[in-house]
């Protein structure tokens, strides 16, 4: 499997505390890679290094052979990486369709234009259809339930047709049934478009049901990497998650984050 994203020896310290300490991994084309770890493991810092919100102390991030280390968030987006937010932030003064249209304008570098782009309604409908919001197009964003705000966030992230998508806690704040639906939608998009997804997640059901591969962080370092089954049985991962070493027969990982 060829790598879309190659992360090598990434590190970041805050006031002498290493939040991310020499992390290396890769994301393959069309792969759904989950990044998990207990609170404070450095997942969010790692994410913010990748999407350009933070500047790395050392290490490199290479997208499709192109070094993107140290680029600004908007430059990284333009190079083909979309992202969604843990706490979905949307354009609260707009309707659903307007928000997606704005995202499309941004993707096509039209944001200084005084003329509306040629009719984008087909593309808007297509994007909203992928996340199941096609019937909500004309609703004000403020009226959407939170799960749909997260779906809109996803539709906006997809508007630039990225090759790679970063999703920070895609199901955080959602009801259980709604989580499963969102993750199914993500998997369908991946299957249809060959998009690669890197996501962090607390909900182990989402991870084990929807990741092709899992990497585990603790105290700023990667401690395990493998398929869902391998990670489920990894004693080190179990120790980190449960706070004690367990031996003997591997039980299933806790269903939800402890």
């Amino acid at each position, binding site marked *: 499997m060829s790598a879309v994203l190659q992360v090598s020896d990434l590190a970041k310290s805050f006031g002498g505390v290493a939040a991310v300490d020499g992390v290396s991994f890769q994301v393959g084309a069309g792969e759904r890679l989950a990044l998990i770890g207990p609170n404070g493991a450095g997942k969010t810092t790692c994410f913010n290094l990748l999407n350009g919100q933070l500047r790395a102390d050392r290490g490199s991030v290479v997208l499709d052979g192109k070094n993107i280390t140290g680029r*600004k968030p908007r430059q990284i987006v333009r190079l083909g990486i979309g992202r969604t937010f843990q706490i979905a932030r949307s*354009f609260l003064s707009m309707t659903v369709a307007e928000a997606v249209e704005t995202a499309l304008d941004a993707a096509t570098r039209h*944001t200084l234009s005084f003329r509306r782009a040629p009719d984008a309604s087909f593309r808007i409908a297509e994007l909203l259809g992928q996340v199941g919001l096609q019937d909500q197009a004309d609703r*004000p964003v403020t009226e959407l339930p939170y799960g749909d705000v997260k779906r809109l966030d996803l539709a906006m992230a997809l*508007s630039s047709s990225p090759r790679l998508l970063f999703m920070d806690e895609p199901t955080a704040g959602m009801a259980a049934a709604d989580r499963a639906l969102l993750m199914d939608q993500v998997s369908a998009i991946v299957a249809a478009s060959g998009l690669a997804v890197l996501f962090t997640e607390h909900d182990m059901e989402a991870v084990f049901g929807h990741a092709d591969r899992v990497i585990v962080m603790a105290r700023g370092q990667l401690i395990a990497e493998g398929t869902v089954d391998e990670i489920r049985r990894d004693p080190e991962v179990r120790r980190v998650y449960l706070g004690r070493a367990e031996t003997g027969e591997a039980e299933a990982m806790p269903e939800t984050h402890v």
Partner: protein
Amino acid sequence: MGFYFAQALTGLASASSLFLVAAGLSLIFGVTRVVNFAHGSLYMIGAYVAMDVIGLFGKVPGFWLALPIAALVSAAVGGLIEVTVLRRIYRAPEMFQLVATFAIVLIAQDVAEWIWGVADRFGPRAPGLSGVVTIFGERIPEYDLFLIAMGPITLFLLWLLFARTRFGVLVRAATQDREMAAALGVDQAKLFTAVFCLGAGLAGLGGAMQVPRDAVTLTMDLEIIAEVFVITVVGGMGSIPGAYLAAILISELNAFGILILPEITLIVAFAAMAVVLVIRPYGLLGRPPSAPETPPGPGMGTLRLPAMAWGGLFLVMALLPLVVDQFMTVLIIDIMILGMFAMSLQFLMGPGGMVSFGHAAYFGVGAYGAALLVRHLEADMGWALAVAPVAAAAAALFFGWFCVRLSGVYLAMLTLAAAQIVWAAAVQMQDFTGGDDGLTGIWPAKLFGDDLAFYYLALAFAVIAVLVLRQATRSPFGRALTAARDAPLRAEALGINVQNQQWMAFTLAGTVAGLAGGLYVFKKGSVFPDVLAIPQSVDALIMVLLGGVDVLAGALIGASTFVVLEDVFNQFEAWRSMLGGVILLIAMLAPGGMAGLGSMIRRRKPA
């Protein structure tokens, strides 16, 4: 060597008064999040009260009684303002608070004039400190040494207050986390009033301390407020040690700047502020502000009148001069010119989400640009009107580059400082701009010499302004701008260059304001530095507030109301107070403005 030392001491002496006033402003902002324009009024009141006390008790002990009494009176007035006005608008958007405190400035000016009269007053030297001491062969006024000592002493006393008393702990808690302090059971109402009194008292003391150095005048309120804004922004809003550092920095720059560039001292202060803010966006010792207080709602800033309504309005405007008399025609020309000015500010504030306290800068640059071209190059009206928006665009491009690096209150105060620079330049560059005498005799071309022709010219310009701003709001440009306002991180993560988007919007707003300014010159036949001054900027804010910030057409409603109100109130002596009263009423009763009243009612209905 001795000379430079003396100059440095002069700077330090000036810093003390500024520090007291700035510390009060910063303290009030830190706890209540209100930028108190009326702080200059409290400073002025302190100075006048000090004069009265000295008059009553004689120089000795009058002067030494004057300091505490002035502080107490200002504190009492501050408390009164807090309880009667500010308490009602803490939850309103920043703009409303600012405009409301400016309304207090207007009322305070009338009251001060009524009590103390218009004549400037000159205080006596401080008893016991009227001599000079000789240091390094330079004569230093003893009073300057007293002032120099007062700065650190006040700083130390405030530190004691905040570090060692329960009140201080509460103030610090409220400054750092308002919600948390409230959750811990702090009585916010009492705390806010107390803080306001303390801040106001500091301003009053600062005013009293200036009495031996400067004349006491009715204009000292707005003169000091711009400088104090610069100091609080440079020091970091809410930081008292920061205010002290910044007061010294700015005063020393002024003291030495006057030696190098005597004509443009304010530019030195601005340059310093710009440098500090580019390196440290929240000032020397400030912290990033917490999230914006008023989340955007549906359509905020971008509600649109349908094209039909605009068409109808245009028809009415085109036919109106045929039925109204000449007086009304002239009045409507004023409305259209100020309406363009207000619409440009609405665009900046609504879709752009940037509140400007200094939008007059671009109106004024347009006006001066046109007038200077006529005066110095004998250009005709066509050229002058073409240059006005271009000149304003250039100014907005320059100042906007700095302003968009900030947000919220910081951005607003930087726009005010920028406007003060342009104002100072217009006043100080006498040979070029005519200084306070302005430029006169700038009459329109013959064709537009009569009111009716000028009316249609103004209408044509207003139509252009509406079309441009309306298109800007609904185009991808305006959408991306609104996106940047609603959720900057999300916008940036979609590839939108947020600062660039805001910079271009700032420039566009400035350009349209300049267009209005150019027209204004030919309407009046003259231009004075007033068009660049703070009241002109606040007028535009008031118009936007009157009409409602959500919709472009609101600015026109606001401008109409404002011009008519001003025309009616102008017949009375206390017109400023009356205007101030109306503004206060609107800010307290209809925070959505008149155009917002409709949507307020609609929003209350269940969905």
